[in-house]
């Protein structure tokens, strides 16, 4: 299964990363090479094998429902690119034409 330059551009958009033409030129053949290396997993007959998502499976991990102090708002905001009135300030999230 190959991967085209257009597909890489599409995946970059899905990943919310602008990429330059130069980057696409470099990325497309590199991803092609990586994909042909990892495609080896298809050689393994594993139709009836259950998948593993975690090495050490744990289910329903609970801890006591005890109130603890939370991170103070000032500390949570201290690393923010922009803050206003005790909140994160973000760029507009809706398109003005919609």
């Amino acid at each position, binding site marked *: 299964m190959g991967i085209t330059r257009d597909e890489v551009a599409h*995946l970059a958009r899905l990943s919310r990363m602008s990429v330059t033409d130069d980057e696409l030129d470099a990325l497309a053949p590199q991803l092609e090479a990586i994909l042909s*290396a990892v495609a080896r997993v298809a050689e393994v007959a594993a139709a009836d094998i259950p998948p593993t998502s975690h*090495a050490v499976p744990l289910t329903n991990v609970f801890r006591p429902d005890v109130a603890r102090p939370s991170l103070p708002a000032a500390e949570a905001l201290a690393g923010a690119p922009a803050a206003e009135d005790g909140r994160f300030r973000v760029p507009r999230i809706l398109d003005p034409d919609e």
Partner: protein
Amino acid sequence: MTDHPTFPDVVRLTAAATAAAIAAGELSAVEATQAALDRIAKVDDTIHAFLHVDAEGALAAARSVDERRAAGEALGPLAGVPLALKDVLTARDMPTTCGSRILEGWHAPYDATVVSRLRAADVVVLGKVNMDEFAMGSSTENSAYGPTRNPWDTTRIPGGSSGGSAAAVAAFEAPLAIGTDTGGSIRQPAAVCGLVGVKPTYGGVSRYGLVAFSSSLDQAGPLARTVTDAALLHAAIAGHDPLDSTSVDVPVPPVVEAAGRRDVRGLRVGVVRELAGEGYDPGVEAAFAAAVEALTELGAEVVEVSCPHFQYALAAYYLIAPSECSSNLARFDAMRFGLRLGDDGQAGAEEVMSRTREAGFGPEVKRRVILGTYALSSGYYDAYYGQAQKVRTLISRDFAAAFERVDVLVSPTTPTPAFPLGSKVDDPVAMYLSDLCTIPSNLAGGPAMSLPAGLVDGLPVGIQIMAPPFADDRLYLVGGALEEALDARRGHPLVAEAPAL
């Protein structure tokens, strides 16, 4: 501080010896810390292990140790020992960059559990050390802040992604370091820098405050110059943590006791047939064979074991890890922390996010995010990510079958010694092969250690020891005995042969 009357070269002491000297009042924690800081000042322009040195914080922590010792307080086995912390773990009083531009200058508002435990053990954190961006890489060349150099040969890579951790310990800037290992990122740098490095059992060390790359694989662990030092650090950071829901509530294996036992008579050791042959440097294979021979001489029963699915581990890993990374790194969205670019009042959030991630992530991170996004896309999910998860099951079954026959498995840690800086940066597939032997343990979750095996043309190489999940003590049992035998054979520890800087 190199003119200390009892210890002419404080920085060359092991962590255990440093702590013992401090406990006995022969050396102060401030003297040990100042010696490390002086060493950093002397050699780090060349090595570039450190991204941030917290001299003031380190000396304050050391003074506190000295004061409490003077007041008669009983202190832990690593009290006053300096340590280098990989910059992927948060510490309130230091920046956390993960080797990325996107987090440049960011200060976490909380300590990672590993860091809290280090502080509770009175370990002196000297600062943050370099790494491949978000721990993605095998050479530390993917750091946005420039590469780290291998102290054995400064034209070569120190391994990665914990290259700063390994270089700091090998260059005698600190006797201990914390690294993290997702596909070999503690063991491979330990091997190519001539150190002991351990990836604990997944779930054995809390991931709270460890910035996630691949959550089902990431695990923090020790790097040190001796097996006992690694065990002391392992014991200090391990144990259940309610703040990490993947942390496992079982007792910490008796690693320190195991490191001191030095007896492997009757222990069954399996040599993994698939981790040899084509692609392996003959020098690496020779050093490995000599180490296995030493185990036989110590009375271990060595047999060959086949793990047929290990040959697919690399492929499965480079689907699973990028898939998880593409999801984990979505949090770097320019909204709540880190870099934000292009917020000009016109651009919307998506555009600001895209511009920021374009400028803030380096090439390897972009490759893996795109690869992961692809592998998780509808239409490809079953063929790639789903199939990789099934291969992961088969690799765990190979381990389980092998551990019915043997107590530990061994292999070379890496197929080759350290390669020259720059030689693989544009060939990701060649770079990925560095992790060939180390990845199976990450996929199956078991613990693994790299121990210095010998030198190949003056460059260190390692032997890897693998154990079943939660049998971390077996690594130290084998490592302690083998280290003693190999040190005796060459007349000194391997790291004593590191060239002067």
